[in-house]
């Protein structure tokens, strides 16, 4: 492999588990001397409730701890390392200044139960952010409480449920397209609904007929992702929403892919009643290796009574937390939401402004369509219409050489890229779902395209190279079957 790719080989450090490091008596901490009388638990607690020792706990010095975690970090691939086109996850750049802002002492040090009069800055930030998200989406009211997209789905579906129950029309089913994220059916069933799948049509979108057929009198809602997970805009969304409403249902939009739409259209104009946002996708807050995210929810006015408590209200110059909301669905988590994540999203919106957000969406569309155009002669494109922010290929052309989407993904690592999302959406056999985001310079896209083209050639000429990939990572392909057959989920001495 020549040096035109980001992926090179370098020294990789070994690192044992925490529990295999350190030695008796080593310390990584310093505590102030006790300035009051020392009280031992034996003096005041029943003896049988007292722990003798923290068995198995590490004993390490500060330098060992830092080396341990530095080595671990070096085995990770993040957006700051390079191109991370993980479809549907919107792995855009995480602005550094926002990390600093979330750590400002008046914000990071604020206790959730401190009196409102000394929390005005934090409350104003949340109040403004709710309004910004409302403006960007065209929804009337927003709650910031849900911790992540899936919890947003739960909160949103509970509001629909409460609204329908109030109307004396509780219903039993939820329609979910076959292209949906797994969280949609899981959240629906958590709300006690039976899930009915709706097939997308040959163009990869929902057809009004398909929805009409399934939209029976006991259907509470349709959950739709727009743009959907094929990266296609649900072009019939308004007609579909009209059908659902005519038959007494509500329309829930999964906003995981909102990064395609900012400033270009309003979800609120599409007949959508509830929408969740993923701040860790669209609004650039870090994904954190799996979280924390934040999943605010926007609703139309008729659902505002059902928002989780507390709701932030403004009276004169002062902001307050209002718990007196008799129709509220209650709380989906403690306190007010992932505030530290909200600070970062707020800073992002203030930095970009209306024009910047619109440009972010347009460039995300440009980058995705560019990759789509450059790769469509090399990989099978199951739906051949222009895409939004991501494009979905399949491994069909490569499979005749015995090479799968998984092999292609693993080989990409050797070239220095994070692989796309694979085997999702489920409607595409052997899917490769590529979402470049707006954060990439043209050279990164060209390098990635070059690597993908080269891998397509390797699939023909040296398929073994792909099946054995990756070759340059800390570990080679891992035995997932073993991990599931004999789960080892913790260290033991």
């Amino acid at each position, binding site marked *: 492999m020549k040096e035109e790719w980001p992926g090179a080989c370098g020294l990789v450090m070994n*690192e044992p588990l925490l529990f295999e490091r350190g030695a008796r008596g080593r*310390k*990584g901490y310093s505590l102030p001397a006790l300035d009051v009388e020392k009280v*031992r638990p034996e003096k005041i607690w029943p003896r049988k*409730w*007292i722990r003798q*020792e923290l068995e198995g706990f590490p*004993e390490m010095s500060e330098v060992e701890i830092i080396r341990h975690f530095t080595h671990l*970090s070096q*085995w*990770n*691939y993040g*957006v700051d390392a390079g191109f991370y086109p993980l479809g549907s996850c919107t792995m855009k750049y995480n*602005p550094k*200044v926002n990390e600093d*802002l979330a750590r400002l*002492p*008046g*914000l*990071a040090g604020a*206790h959730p*139960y*401190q009196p409102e009069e000394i929390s005005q800055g934090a409350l104003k930030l949340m109040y403004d952010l709710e309004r910004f998200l409302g403006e*960007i989406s065209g929804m009337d009211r927003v709650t910031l409480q849900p911790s*992540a997209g899936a919890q947003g789905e739960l909160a949103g579906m*509970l509001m629909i449920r409460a609204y329908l129950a109030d109307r004396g029309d509780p219903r039993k089913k939820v329609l979910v397209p076959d292209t949906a994220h*797994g969280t949609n059916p*899981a959240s629906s069933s*958590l*709300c*006690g609904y039976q899930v009915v799948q709706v097939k997308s049509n040959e163009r990869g979108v929902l057809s009004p007929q398909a929805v009409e057929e399934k939209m029976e009198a006991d259907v509470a809602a349709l959950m739709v992702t727009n743009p959907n997970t094929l990266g296609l*805009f649900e072009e019939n*969304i*308004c007609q579909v929403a009209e059908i659902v409403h005519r038959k007494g249902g509500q329309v829930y939009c999964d906003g995981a892919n909102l990064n395609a739409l900012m400033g*270009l*259209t309003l979800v609120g104009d599409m007949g959508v009643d509830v929408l969740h946002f993923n701040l860790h996708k669209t609004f650039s807050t870090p994904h954190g*290796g799996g979280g*924390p995210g934040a999943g605010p929810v926007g609703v139309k006015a008729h659902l505002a009574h059902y928002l989780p408590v507390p709701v932030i209200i403004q009276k004169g110059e002062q902001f307050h937390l209002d718990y007196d909301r008799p129709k509220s*669905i209650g709380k*989906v988590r*403690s*306190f007010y939401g992932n505030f530290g994540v909200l600070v970062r999203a707020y*800073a992002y919106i203030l930095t970009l402004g*209306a024009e910047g957000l*619109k440009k972010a969406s347009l*460039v995300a*569309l*440009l980058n995705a369509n560019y990759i789509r155009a450059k790769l469509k002669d090399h990989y099978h494109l199951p739906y051949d219409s222009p895409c939004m922010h991501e494009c979905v290929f399949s491994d069909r052309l490569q499979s005749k050489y015995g090479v799968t989407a998984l092999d292609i993904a693993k080989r990409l*690592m050797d070239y220095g890229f994070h692989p796309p999302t694979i085997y999702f959406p489920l409607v595409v056999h052997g899917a490769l779902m590529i979402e470049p985001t707006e954060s990439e310079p043209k050279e990164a896209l060209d390098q990635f395209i070059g690597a993908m083209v080269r891998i397509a050639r390797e699939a023909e000429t040296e398929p073994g190279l792909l099946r054995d990939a990756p070759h340059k990572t800390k*570990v080679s392909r*891992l*035995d*997932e079957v*073993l*991990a*599931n057959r004999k*789960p080892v*989920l*913790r*260290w033991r001495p």
Partner: protein
Amino acid sequence: MRYIPNAEADRDSMLKAIGVERLEDLANILPESLRLKKELVLPPPLSEMELVHYLGSLSEEGSGQKTISFLGAGAYDHYLPAVVDHVLRRSEFYTAYTPYQPEISQGTLQAIFEFQTLICQLTGMDVANASVYDGASAVAEAVLMAHRLKGKKKSFFSRAVHPESRMVTRTYTHPLGLELGEISYTSAGGTDLEALRQAVDEETSAVVIQQPNFFGCLEDLEQAAKIAQDKGALLIAAVAEPLSLALLQPPGILGADIVVGEGQAFGNALSFGGPYVGFFACKEAFLRSMPGRLVGQTIDRQGRRGFVLAVATREQHIRREKATSNICTNQALCALAALVYLATLGKQGLRELAEINLSKGEYAKKRLAEHGRLRFSAPTFNEFVLTFDADPPSVLQSLLREGIMAGLPLKRFYPEMEREVLVCVTEKHSKGDIDRFAAALGNIIRRK
């Protein structure tokens, strides 16, 4: 725009490649009727310098920084060693996502495996997951899991479980038609176990007890476990202040079946209530019913140790509507903070720190009892309930004017507690801080 690298020249050549004339024309993929004809109304974009200045002003506005806070109640103000944030700021950790591709995610995976191990050691459980959103949703997920395992409609909560955990659990269980009964507390401050014994029957899935409870009092988990298990129900132990586990017998050893809690106290800032990190641990037998992600150990093709997401057939991306939970994104970075914190304190430090908290709590109890009454007699860790002889809102207001946030008035959650305030003391309070609180309280009470 510094976060969007492609300049006009780059864009032009790319547009050419896809056969589109202008960047704005890409919006033509959208149906004409839906295209936005106006600009969004948002504040004009700020430069980095303006942004820092503005957020700085929000941070200072009415900020609680100049006051001494004795607030706890599920969010604990412990000292954060510098190493924690230095590790968190390594962007290889925070700019990665869920480790779907294990070969280039070994750092996150090994860290979660270590986190799972420490949680097991602290709770006395066999398995722990890679984290859930927070302590409250962890309790809710535990009640749902007990229902999956037992198939019974009823569960009981001690009223001394954090009120927000109870509220969240109600939200989660209501649509499934589950019943949640509440058991009151005794005059000593623990759950009324006699009442619990009367209430639990064969139709009960689970009993939830918090340790130490919301009033800071220690509970008899062993008894509670016996009462629950005698009727075939599970005991869920909820932990809000996990530092207490450094001194307390692990709930698993005392008979708990599921141990969940809030991990914020370990290395995570208060941050106005989030992001925090819920932990979830249970007996091995319940593994396949657990919510959330799990990391497991395995080997690569050369036989080297490595880690992967394991037992994923419980999860939404595979099982969809039949999944054990809808959770996808969790709190991995907060779990990393907890891990670094626990490694830093280590075996000795965590215990010493817990003893400091206990000692300061006892000192504060003694000093404050000179001007109020301790509401409960049960032993406590670092929190306790104080009854004021004067109207709490006005006393708290007066204390605030003197730079002291005295604690949480409990009336909001317990209407019967009109004069009670929940006070928390940690290593961050010096003897002088506690003395100042006691003296100010004495002066105010005398004046009233």
